């Protein structure tokens, strides 16, 4: 904020209200004056369309679910395939440079999965579930590429990651004896690669991927997938090697993300996500250290009070430090902006 010509958004209005400069009755008018009309008009339109399409499609799904068992196999295929043709045809007709056309192609991608499920149900192919998801991933990739829509890419990534997780659960872990924790690390790493690809693409001018939420969703997913196995190591360690890999992967991701979103892009919400996960991990480390050092023996007054007391101090220290870092980063970013 430039101190000479300060700007204010809706959140600053409460300060004016508390100072008595804006009355309760005049508050709505004051909101009008600071609200980004163009943004909210666009948002309102999109929300209306998304709600309409979402509820209508959910209604269609419910309708077929109601009648599904009574339908013949031919009817089942016909329904899904006709819907597929309508959505793809509609997308081509409307054009992929318009949001509605892109939405139709996303619907077609979802219907492809439904069609594969119907094939599996009718023919009882005996295929593993991961094969269905793998086929789905491959089949919708061309549509995902040509639609140039972030939601479509997100859907594709979810389907692809689900295929991998199922493959890991059904083949890699039981047959090839891969440690289960590594599957989660691979998921986190691949989402992190997708995030890196997103950043690279935006730098190359792919403006359709530039929406801020795409970065935050991918970052949160990557950090969550890497955090879960790393944190689990703090409660139970069976496989030391796999555990070390999990912890190193999480710390590496946190380090790289902190550096990139602080040094290069100065993105405070992204930094808050990273700091939040680091804070949670530090709390888990504290639990482990105290458990090893004192032990949480809740029936014995001495160890119980000292271990829980130490845990309280540790939790306050961890979150207090996180709060301090976030405040300082925010202050620095505000100074830089001004």
């Amino acid at each position, binding site marked *: 904020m430039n101190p000479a010509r300060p700007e204010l958004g809706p959140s600053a209005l409460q300060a004016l209200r508390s100072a008595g400069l804006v009355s309760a009755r005049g508050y709505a008018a004051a909101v009008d004056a600071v609200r980004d009309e163009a943004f909210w008009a666009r948002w309102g339109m999109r929300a209306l369309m998304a709600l309409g399409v979402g509820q209508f499609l959910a*209604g269609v799904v419910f309708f077929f679910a109601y009648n599904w068992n009574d339908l013949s196999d031919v009817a089942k295929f016909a329904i899904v395939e006709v819907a597929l043709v309508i959505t793809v045809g509609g997308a081509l007709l409307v054009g992929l440079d318009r949001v509605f056309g892109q939405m139709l192609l996303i619907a077609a991608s979802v219907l492809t999965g439904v069609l594969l499920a119907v094939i599996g149900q009718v023919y009882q192919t005996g295929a593993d579930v991961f094969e269905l998801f793998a086929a789905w991933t491959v089949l919708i990739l061309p549509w995902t590429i040509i639609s140039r829509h972030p939601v479509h890419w997100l859907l594709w990534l979810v389907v692809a990651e689900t295929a991998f997780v199922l493959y890991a659960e059904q083949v890699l872990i039981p047959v090839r004896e891969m440690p289960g924790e590594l599957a989660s690390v691979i998921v986190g790493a691949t989402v992190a690669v997708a995030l890196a690809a997103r950043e690279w693409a935006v730098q190359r001018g792919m403006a359709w991927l530039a929406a801020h939420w795409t970065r935050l969703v991918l970052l949160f997913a990557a950090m969550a997938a890497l955090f879960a196995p790393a944190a689990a190591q703090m409660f139970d360690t069976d496989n030391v090697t796999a555990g070390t890999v999990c912890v190193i992967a999480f710390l590496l991701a946190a380090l790289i993300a902190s550096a990139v979103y602080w040094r290069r892009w100065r993105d405070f919400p992204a930094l808050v996500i990273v700091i939040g996960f680091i804070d949670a991990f530090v709390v888990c480390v504290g639990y482990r250290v105290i458990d090893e050092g004192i032990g949480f023996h809740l029936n014995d007054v001495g160890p119980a009070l000292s271990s829980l007391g130490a845990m309280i101090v540790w939790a306050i220290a961890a979150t207090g430090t996180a709060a301090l870092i976030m405040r300082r980063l925010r202050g620095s970013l505000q100074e830089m902006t001004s």
Partner: protein
Amino acid sequence: MTELAAFCARTGIDEAAARQALSARAAHDDSPWYMQVVLGIGAWITTIVALFFAGVVMELVFDIDEPNLPVAIVGAIVFVASFWLLHHRPEGAFASHAAVAFATAGTLLAAAGVGVPEESLWRAAAATLPFAAAAIWQQRSVLLQFLIVSIALILGIVAAWDHWHDPVADLPALFIPVGMALLLWPPRRDVRATAFALLIVPLLLDIVISRFESTWALWSGWPARGLLLAVFALLFAINWRRVVDRQGRLLALAAAVAVAVVVWPLPTGASGSLVLLTLAYTLGSRTLAVVGTLMAIYFIWSFYWDLDGTLLTKSIILMSVGAVLLLCYGLLVGTLRERRAS
């Protein structure tokens, strides 16, 4: 973002006074919501450990099997001490985090100390009310206000659930209008955290309760729907003055009728999430937009598992609602094109 000078000129506020008020704001807790979420989770973790600590002290040191009045008094003392800490060290990151966590733990101890001996959830809920009032009164921590008001709401709703099984899913309709009013006509004291708790916590509890029992029956709960419709009417009236031309007003009226059609057949949670979305639009609040979107997705999805209506009935409701919304969308797009062309 609007420039302060332009804002003051438009609203007739003295610019120097506005500058002073905004610079004074920096001394208060104005962290963004996602930062508050991180700190809130941290505070809950500390609170849980503190409660374990209190439990050990109670059982192993003082030989108290169940929370009782002395425990409630200790909880109140912890709360007051935390308040004192927060008042004297509001800027200290460690002190304020500890104060929020201990004040929350103190509130829960007091509620348990009052409610457990009588086996009364109502008493436990009532015991939290003075703490909630104090948390609203203090202006040092938004997080503390949100957490304590949330605890009071959770205990109150669970007590209601314990007594009346069926209407509990409609309770969000009672709290949403209050939360909305606090955001649209805010008092001078900052109560936004209370408003957000009133808007969000009952809907979240609705989700939890629906996992345990089927609470919604088709076409029942009409008082809740009536209340939500009144809320929509109010929001519509506020937005009405934004539309200046006749064509736009006709369209807005059509949209209002459509919303009424949408709200009537949907379960309270789904209608409540639509209120959140409309309120987000009215206030320009991205936080409410995110929460409302997530809630809308959840409630529409969970409609599938509702056992009170057949899938056929539910599919007709959803298709009709979707068709009405798409019709509105089409009308809006058409009007905007005409305007651009003219």
